[in-house]
């Protein structure tokens, strides 16, 4: 009994010792990089019910590592499960983000480069070109035949002003086959519910909650640039930086036209391990 109490006290102590500070975005990237040496493990999921197709759950498992203050790398594994169909792994992605300006400015650019090898993806981590509700109509066995080996680039622009974070992404994606370049956008704003930290340790104080709004969509491709037959989403988003480097995020998002899925529910869990490699250097203590 005493041992159980001791373990509980130690666990609570551990959980009250640190907190991550993440933006509540699911699609939009901010200019903020992972701290060097930190490893963040994240699961992001999207649930949707496209008209004329089966309900689905698409998920990413992500490993994000801060290599340098100006370089963050991330590896994803993707999967999806479709009602009345199947559950499958849909591929992997490897992204790198580089921050060319080493000081904070009004607008901070970050260069994003990703290679992805995916098929039948339903995570909607980006919407480009003419991506839309029709992509979800095919059964998984058929959708898997359309392998996409793609290079995705983004120009990430981010600003912090009086507690607000404003982030804009301009996306250009190229399938390594003969498909044309496809374009998309994402933007988001968010703010902690309280800017100053409270003097006492707390799990549910307002400074641990971020709220904002996120919007993203496709912009056609090289030959048909514009809004025609593209899908767009917008929704409020919120996260809670729980004690213990755990962050929980949620966002209901709404399709803005007939090409979009009417409603998406996104949720995410991330856990940050500070100075990941030190664990091994110190012999696991």
């Amino acid at each position, binding site marked *: 009994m005493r041992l159980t109490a001791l373990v509980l006290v130690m666990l609570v102590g551990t959980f009250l010792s640190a907190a991550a500070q993440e933006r509540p975005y699911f699609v939009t990237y901010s200019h903020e990089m992972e701290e060097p040496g930190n490893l963040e493990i994240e699961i992001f999921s999207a649930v949707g019910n496209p008209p004329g197709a089966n309900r689905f759950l698409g998920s990413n498992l992500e490993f994000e590592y801060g290599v340098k203050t100006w370089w963050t790398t991330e590896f994803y594994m993707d999967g999806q499960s479709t009602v009345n169909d199947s559950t499958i792994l849909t591929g992997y992605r490897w992204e790198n983000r580089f921050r060319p300006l080493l000081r904070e400015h009004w607008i901070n650019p970050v260069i994003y480069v990703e290679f992805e090898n995916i098929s039948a993806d339903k995570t909607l981590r980006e919407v480009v070109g003419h991506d839309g509700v029709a992509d979800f109509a095919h059964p998984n066995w058929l959708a898997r035949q359309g392998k996409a080996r793609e290079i995705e680039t983004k120009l990430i622009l981010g600003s912090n002003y009086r507690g607000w974070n404003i982030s804009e992404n301009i996306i250009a994606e190229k399938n390594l086959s003969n498909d044309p370049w496809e374009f998309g956008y994402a933007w988001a704003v968010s703010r902690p519910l309280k800017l100053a930290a409270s003097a*006492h340790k707390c799990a549910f104080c307002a400074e641990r909650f971020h709220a904002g709004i996120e919007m993203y969509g496709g912009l056609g491709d090289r030959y048909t640039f514009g809004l025609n037959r593209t899908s767009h989403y917008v929704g409020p988003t919120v996260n809670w930086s729980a004690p213990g480097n755990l962050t929980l995020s949620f966002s209901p998002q709404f399709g803005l036209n007939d090409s979009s899925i009417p409603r998406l529910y996104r949720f995410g869990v991330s856990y940050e391990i500070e100075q990941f490699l030190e664990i091994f250097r110190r012999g696991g203590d």
Partner: protein
Amino acid sequence: MFRKRPSLLILLMFSAVLLFGTADGAWLAKVPASDHQKTNPYEGQPDAIAAGRKVFEEHCTKCHGQNAQGVKKRPSLRTERIQQQATVGDLHWLLVNGSMKRGMPSWAKLPDPQLWQLVTYLKSLHE
């Protein structure tokens, strides 16, 4: 080579000393005057020191140690440079911009009041 030309060795050693001398704390010289002169809205407030300590424990201890004494190559924050030479404005500037070439990230993702609370805590360490 150095046996034949000892002056070259002396020049190299002198350059190395100069290089380390400027690199260590070189960020202080980069702080703009407007930031250098900034005042801390939380100066000396006990609640701000406690809040700053909390922010420090959540984000800084892994690199700078529980008591800001430094960990391995990560510097102590109890040095004369931080406690005496740097103004509160200098420290706030360092937190916003980081010293990215030397591994210190920008903490601009923390709201400004939290950065000032952190500065208040750091400056309280010498008392």
